[in-house]
C-alpha cells in the first residue's frame, strides 16, 4: 500500500477533503487575504467568512506536521528556546515551526497573521498560546472569553457575556482589519449552510450503531470531522462533502461492510469501543493498525466532538439567532462541558452503540481532556457495567508514544473481553 501517512483512506470523499485542505492552505499563503489564527473549539468560521478573512488553525498545522514526522524537531526547538517539557505539545510544535521558518504544508511560508482570534474555549492553554504568539507577531489580538459550563448548563449571563464580546470586541476588530462592514444577513446565510452540513454529520455519527459498523468513529472519524471542524463550516463545499460521505456510508451499510481502514475493509468486527481523548498523531497509522489488526472498531468517540457537539443535545447553528447560536456553539464544545456531562455523554454512547467498553487514550499534553479521566472511567464502568481501559500517549510528541506499552495494554484488554465472553458467567474456571 502507499507509505505516506497522509492519504489513509482512499475514497472520493477523502480525495475531495484533501483537495479542500490544500486549497485552504493555498488561500492562507496566497497573500491575497487577511489571515486570522484561531482554535478548533470555539472556531467562528462563519463570522470570519463574513469579513473574507482566511482561517488558519495552529492545532491543525501541528497535526499536519506530526503526520509528516516534523513535529518532534519543532518541539525540541521550542524547548530549546525555553519552553517547558511539561506543557502542551501543540503549542511547542507551533512555536517551533515558527522558529524554523513557518512553512505551511504546501511548502509556502505562512504569512504573519493579521489577527489572533483568541477564542478561549474549553482550554486554558489557548490563552497562553496566543499571548505567546502575540509576543512574536504583535498583531491585534482579540479575546473571546467563553465561560466554562461548570454546572452542565448554559446560563443567560454566560450567553449574554459572549454575545456582548462578539458585538463589542470581536466584530469591530474584524471590521477594522478587513475594512468590510459586518452584514448579519451574510452570517445568517452561512449559518444556514452550517446547519445543513451538520444534519448529515449527525446522521453519519449515528451509523456506527449498525453491526458491523460501516465506519470507524475515531481514526476514521477524525477525517470525517475535518471540514466541519476547520475552515469549511458554513461553506457549500462542506455541504457537498457531507452529502458525498453520506452516500458512501450508505453504500457500505447496504453491502454490510465492516469499517474501512488504510489496508482495506476490516474483515471482522470483534470488538466495539467508545474512545475518549484525542488520538496520537505521530504514529497515527501504527496506532490505528493495533486496533484493526485485533478486530477492534471505534463506534463513538469524544474527539469527534471537540469542534462542536451536535448529537448529544442536538445543537444546530441557527440563522434566526445568529450571535446567540455562535455563543451556544462555543459554550457547548466538548471540552467546555463539565465532567458529569462528559460522563453522561460517553456512558450513553457505550449503551446506545452497544460497545464492549470505554477506552481512554489519555494525552499527556492536554489537561483539559486528561485531568479527571480516571474518575470518568470509573463512573462510566459503574453506569454501563462494561470494563474500561486506559492508555497513555501524546498528541504530536513522538517521545511519548511507546508502541510496546500501548499494544500490551490493548492486547490485555481485548483478551480480557474475550475471556469474559467465553466464561459467559459460568461458575467453572474458564481457561
Amino acid at each position, binding site marked *: 500500500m502507499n507509505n505516506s501517512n497522509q492519504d489513509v483512506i482512499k475514497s472520493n470523499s477523502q480525495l475531495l477533503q484533501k483537495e479542500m485542505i490544500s486549497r485552504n492552505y493555498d488561500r492562507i499563503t496566497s497573500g491575497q487575504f487577511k489571515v486570522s489564527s484561531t482554535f478548533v473549539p470555539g472556531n467562528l468560521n462563519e463570522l470570519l467568512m463574513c469579513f473574507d478573512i482566511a482561517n488558519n488553525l495552529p492545532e491543525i498545522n501541528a497535526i499536519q506536521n506530526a503526520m509528516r514526522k516534523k513535529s518532534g524537531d519543532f518541539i525540541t526547538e521550542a524547548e530549546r528556546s525555553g519552553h517547558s517539557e511539561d506543557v*502542551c505539545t501543540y*503549542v511547542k510544535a507551533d512555536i517551533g515551526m515558527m522558529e524554523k521558518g513557518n512553512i505551511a504544508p504546501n511548502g509556502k511560508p505562512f504569512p504573519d497573521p493579521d489577527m489572533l482570534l483568541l477564542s478561549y474555549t474549553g482550554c486554558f492553554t489557548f490563552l497562553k498560546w496566543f499571548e505567546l504568539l502575540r509576543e512574536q507577531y504583535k498583531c491585534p489580538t482579540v479575546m473571546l472569553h467563553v465561560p466554562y459550563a461548570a454546572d452542565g448548563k448554559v446560563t443567560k449571563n454566560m450567553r449574554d*457575556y459572549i454575545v456582548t464580546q462578539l458585538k463589542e470586541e470581536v466584530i469591530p476588530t474584524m471590521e477594522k482589519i478587513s475594512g468590510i462592514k459586518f452584514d448579519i444577513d451574510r452570517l445568517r446565510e452561512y449559518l444556514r449552510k452550517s446547519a445543513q452540513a451538520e444534519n448529515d454529520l449527525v446522521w453519519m455519527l449515528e451509523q456506527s450503531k449498525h453491526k458491523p459498523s460501516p465506519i470507524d468513529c475515531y481514526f476514521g472519524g477524525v477525517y470525517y470531522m475535518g471540514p466541519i471542524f476547520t475552515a469549511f463550516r458554513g461553506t457549500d463545499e462542506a455541504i457537498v462533502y457531507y452529502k458525498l460521505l453520506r452516500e458512501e456510508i450508505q453504500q457500505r451499510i447496504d453491502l454490510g461492510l465492516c469499517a474501512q481502514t488504510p489496508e482495506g475493509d476490516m474483515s471482522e468486527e470483534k470488538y466495539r469501543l467508545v474512545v475518549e481523548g484525542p488520538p496520537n498523531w505521530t504514529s497515527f497509522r501504527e496506532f490505528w493498525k493495533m486496533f484493526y489488526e485485533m478486530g477492534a472498531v471505534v463506534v463513538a468517540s469524544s474527539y469527534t466532538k471537540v469542534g462542536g457537539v451536535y448529537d448529544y443535545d442536538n445543537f444546530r447553528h441557527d440563522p434566526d439567532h445568529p450571535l446567540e447560536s455562535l455563543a451556544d456553539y462555543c459554550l457547548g464544545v466538548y471540552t467546555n462541558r463539565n465532567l458529569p456531562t462528559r460522563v453522561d455523554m460517553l456512558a450513553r454512547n457505550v449503551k446506545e452503540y452497544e460497545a464492549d467498553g470505554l477506552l481512554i487514550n489519555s494525552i499527556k499534553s492536554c489537561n483539559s481532556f486528561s*485531568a479527571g479521566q480516571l474518575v470518568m472511567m470509573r463512573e462510566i464502568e459503574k453506569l454501563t457495567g462494561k470494563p474500561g481501559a486506559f492508555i497513555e500517549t501524546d498528541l504530536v510528541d513522538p517521545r511519548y508514544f511507546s508502541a510496546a506499552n500501548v499494544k500490551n495494554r490493548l492486547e490485555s484488554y481485548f483478551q480480557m473481553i474475550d475471556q469474559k465472553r467465553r466464561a459467559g458467567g459460568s461458575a467453572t474456571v474458564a481457561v
Partner: protein
Amino acid sequence: MSAKPVEKIVDFCQGIFEDITFAKARQWKDAQPGRKVIGYMPVYVPREIIHAAGMLPLGILGGGADMEVIHGDAYYQSYICRIPRSTIELAITGKLDFVDGMMFPSICDVIRNLSGIWQIMFKDKYVRYFDAPQNFKDEIGGVFYSNELRELKEGLEKLGGREITDAQINNSIAVYNENRDWVNRVYDFRAATPWNAPAAEVYLLMRAGMVLPVEEHTQLMKDYLEAAAAEPRPMRDNCRVTLIGTFCEQPPLNLIKSLEMAGCYIVDDDTMLVTRWLLEAVPTDGDPIDNLSKAFLHHSAETAAKYEVNLEEKGSYMLESIRKRGADGVIFAAPSFCDPALLDQPMMVHRLEALGIPYITMQYAENSGQMQPIREQAGTFADSIKLWSSS
C-alpha cells in the same frame, strides 16, 4: 497585647501548617451551631462574600510534603501536577468532611475539572466553579463578573439560609482591606530587613491566614511584626530574589528554607496571592458587588491566571515587585506540569532579559524531597551575584 516572642508565633503557625485535619477551622465551626466552612483552591476567590455570609473561607493548598498520597494517584495521571491529587486524598480520607462547600477558581483546566470530580464524588456538597472574566471592561467583563458574584452570593444565601446584605459585605470588605494592609506591611518589613523575617516564617504566617478567621490572622501579623522587630538577627551575605510561579501548588517548606540557606533572601513571592490579589483598598460604601467587580477588573495582580490585554503591561506585576522590593534577581519556581506557570514563564523571561535582570528557573512538587539540586542552583545563583558584584 504584649508582644510574644517570634518563636512562639512561628510555632503556632507551624502547628496550623502541619495539621492536615484543619483542627482550627473545625474548632471555629463547632463553636457555634449552624456555622459553615467554605473551602477554596488557590489563586483568587472573593473571600469577602463568604465572610459576609458568616462563613469561614478555608484555603486548601494541597497536602504538603509529608502526606502519604495513596488514592490520589488513582485519580490523576503522573503528568498532572500534584495539588489536585493530594486535595482529593484529603477529601476521601475524611479530612474535609466538615467543609460544607468548595470553590474552584478559574486558574487552569486541572482545577476546573476538579470541580467536576467534586460534583461526581461529593454530591451533597455545595460546589462552585468560580469564573472570573478575561475581559476587563466594565460593560462587558464587569457585567458578567458582577452577575457571577451575585450568583455566588445567592448560592451562599441558600446554603446559609439567610440573606447577605450589602452592609454586611461592605463590612467584610473593610475587614479584608485591613488584612491586606497588614499583609503588605509584613512584606515591606521583610524586604527591608530580610534577615529579621526569614522567608519560611513569613510563609507560615501567611499560611495561617488560610485557616484562621481573618480577624485573628490580622492580629497575628501585628504581633509578628512587633516581635520580629524586637528580635534583630544577624544579617548574612545573601543576595535578594523575588520568587515567581508559586501561586498554586505550594513549594515544600524545605525548598523555601533551602533557598535562603543557599544564599538567597526571598524579598517577594507570589504564594497565596489571594491575600493581596486586590492591589488597592476596596471602597466600603456603595454597591459592594460593583466595587469588588471593579477592583478585580482594574486593580488586581497581573499574573499567569489572567489574560493581559496590553502587550506592554505583560509582566508588570513582577517587574514592579523587583523594583519595589529591591531584588537582585528572580527565581522562577514552578510546580511540575503547571500550565499557567510554565506557559507564562518564557514571556516573563523575555522581560527580564531585556532589562538584564538575572534569573534562574526550577521546578518542584509539593512533596519534592531532594533539595540538593535546588540548593545547587540557588547557591550558584547566589555565588555568581556575590562573586561578581562589587562587594
